[in-house]
């Protein structure tokens, strides 16, 4: 995947296969996109495969094409965040996570679609592109990393980066039937990830096989001087022991029959493979979503205050004075969901309301952490649903059944199984667990901080009984080439 001819062929493959799915906002390989263009002579800043001082280059450890969610910076590519506000912004630098993967041999082949600034569950909250579920185009790909999930499911790329603030990697991974890792907060540098909710969000990986997801995570993780919250994961993942006990939730979880049945089947598979199953109770579960959205919108209102039409991004045609410039820029360029979250966040931070909302949510966050610490004394990981439903119909899909639709409020409430990991900063991994009604199913494994390796091990075990499947409409790159490249 290094010579120009192959790259051009590969990009043609993506363009052709992505016509209906719409995973990508930009499909390109840019000469200046690899690393930071050798700005300082640091070997880390040279394109993969080149040696700064004539020494033989190390063999690439991730010689794969890589798709990157369009809220993660890659020098020379646009960085739209799915927003009219940043539609024409070209990133002047590369995120640390991407730079580390490029250094290991990965080649960025494009930027994937998302909900505006990562705010949404369907990749529908964006004016810049339309992404559908590769398994059934009447259904959503999930969100906000829907483009990355659809690209992997459609076999356009073996691995893609996403970001996860409240489930934005795991939910689309489940909807599209691929693996999706939300790492422990801080293990992957956020430098180059456009800020939405800084205390919750992480860069993570979506992939077609668990080994590639694990390798990608290992290569991009570790402390980074550009992110004060970054940390080195301990070498043994916090525990040298293999996973033996898996916690499961009991009772009415509000799941559709298909998801409930699949949850039970996945538990049975684990049990058959020798894991001890232990029921656990998350008493804080019903408070997770309001606490999450209170904190996320509060942080969003502060983080998105930087978009004012002055230094970069959308600028209105005319403004009488600086204040009108700022107001017009924000009012004309932000989409509805972004405005809604900014309004909510501004409100919960207002003097007089802070204790009732924001501080209360932060205290609930403490209770969630404590409860999980207690649970992880008894089990090694927790097996949980990702979302109460499978992929739901697109808003503009006329033929889809009305009972399966979720309005914007229901979509938020349905985040209850994913937000927990973000509030507690824990790693969680979506694994594909089958199909029902022609759409994928996925479950998540959530472990204590730094337990990624243990999650990978359980996922590998599950993959033996529940292997990943791809939609019939998809075709892999080798198959495409063997078939004559679409000609």
């Amino acid at each position: 995947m290094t010579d120009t001819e192959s790259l051009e062929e590969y990009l043609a493959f993506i363009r052709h296969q992505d016509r209906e799915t719409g995973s990508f906002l930009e499909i390109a390989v840019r000469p200046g996109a690899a690393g930071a263009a050798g700005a300082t002579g640091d070997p880390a800043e040279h394109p993969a495969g080149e040696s700064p001082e004539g020494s033989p280059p190390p063999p690439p450890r991730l010689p794969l094409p890589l798709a990157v969610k369009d809220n993660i910076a890659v020098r020379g590519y646009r960085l739209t965040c799915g927003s009219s506000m940043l539609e024409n912004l070209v990133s002047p630098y590369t995120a640390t996570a991407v730079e580390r993967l490029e250094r290991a041999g990965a080649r960025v082949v494009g930027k994937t679609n998302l909900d505006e600034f990562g705010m949404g569950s369907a990749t529908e909250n964006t004016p810049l592109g339309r992404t559908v579920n590769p398994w059934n185009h009447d259904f959503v790909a999930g969100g906000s990393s829907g483009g990355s999930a659809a690209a992997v499911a459609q076999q356009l790329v073996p691995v893609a980066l996403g970001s996860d603030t409240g489930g934005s990697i795991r939910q689309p991974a489940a909807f599209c039937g691929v693996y999706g890792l939300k790492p422990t907060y801080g293990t992957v540098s956020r430098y180059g990830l456009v800020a939405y909710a800084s205390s919750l969000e992480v860069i993570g990986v979506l992939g077609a096989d668990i080994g590639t997801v694990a390798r990608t995570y290992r290569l991009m993780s570790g402390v980074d001087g550009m992110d004060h919250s970054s940390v080195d994961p301990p070498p043994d993942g916090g525990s040298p022991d293999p996973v033996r006990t898996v916690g499961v939730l009991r009772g009415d979880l509000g799941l559709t029959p298909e998801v409930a049945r699949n949850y039970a089947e996945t538990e049975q598979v684990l049990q058959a493979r020798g894991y001890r199953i232990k029921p656990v109770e998350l008493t804080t579960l019903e408070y997770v979503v309001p606490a999450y959205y209170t904190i996320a919108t509060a942080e969003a209102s502060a983080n998105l205050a930087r978009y004012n039409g002055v230094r970069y991004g959308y600028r209105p045609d005319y403004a009488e004075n600086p204040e009108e410039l700022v107001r017009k820029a924000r009012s004309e360029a932000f989409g509805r969901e972004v405005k809604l979250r900014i309004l909510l966040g501004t409100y919960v931070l207002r003097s007089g309301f802070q204790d009732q909302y924001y501080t209360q949510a932060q205290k609930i966050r403490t209770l969630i952490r404590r409860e999980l610490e207690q649970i992880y004394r008894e089990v090694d990981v927790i097996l949980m649903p990702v979302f109460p439903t499978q992929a739901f119909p697109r808003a503009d899909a006329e033929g889809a059944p009305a009972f399966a639709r979720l309005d914007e409020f229901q979509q938020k409430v349905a985040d209850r199984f994913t937000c927990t990991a973000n509030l507690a900063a824990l790693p969680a991994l979506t694994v594909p667990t089958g199909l029902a009604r022609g759409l994928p199913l996925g479950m998540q494994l959530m472990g204590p901080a730094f337990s990624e390796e243990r999650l990978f091990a359980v996922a590998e075990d599950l993959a033996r009984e529940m292997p990943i499947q791809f939609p019939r409409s998809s075709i892999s790159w080798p198959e495409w080439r063997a078939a004559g490249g679409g000609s």
Partner: protein
Amino acid sequence: MDSLELRTTADMAMLDLDDSGLAELEDAVSRVLEYFTTMAAIDVKNVEPTTHALITGNRTRRDQPASLALADDVLEQAADLEDRLISIPNVL
């Protein structure tokens, strides 16, 4: 949240919403805020708030001058430049 509160909040957030925009968002904001009030049911007496689940300290760079190699690239993104200065409408 009533219209006046919403208008005040939008003003603080530097968002101009016309009447139809306000009406459209009023229901959505109110529905979520009402949902937020369910948090009052849980007992948080003597519980410390968590701002960051894993960060225990603050790490800072060394306090010394450095040059920003990206300055030219950053300036290229500005909508209106005069030499190396970003133009905005007149203040007065």
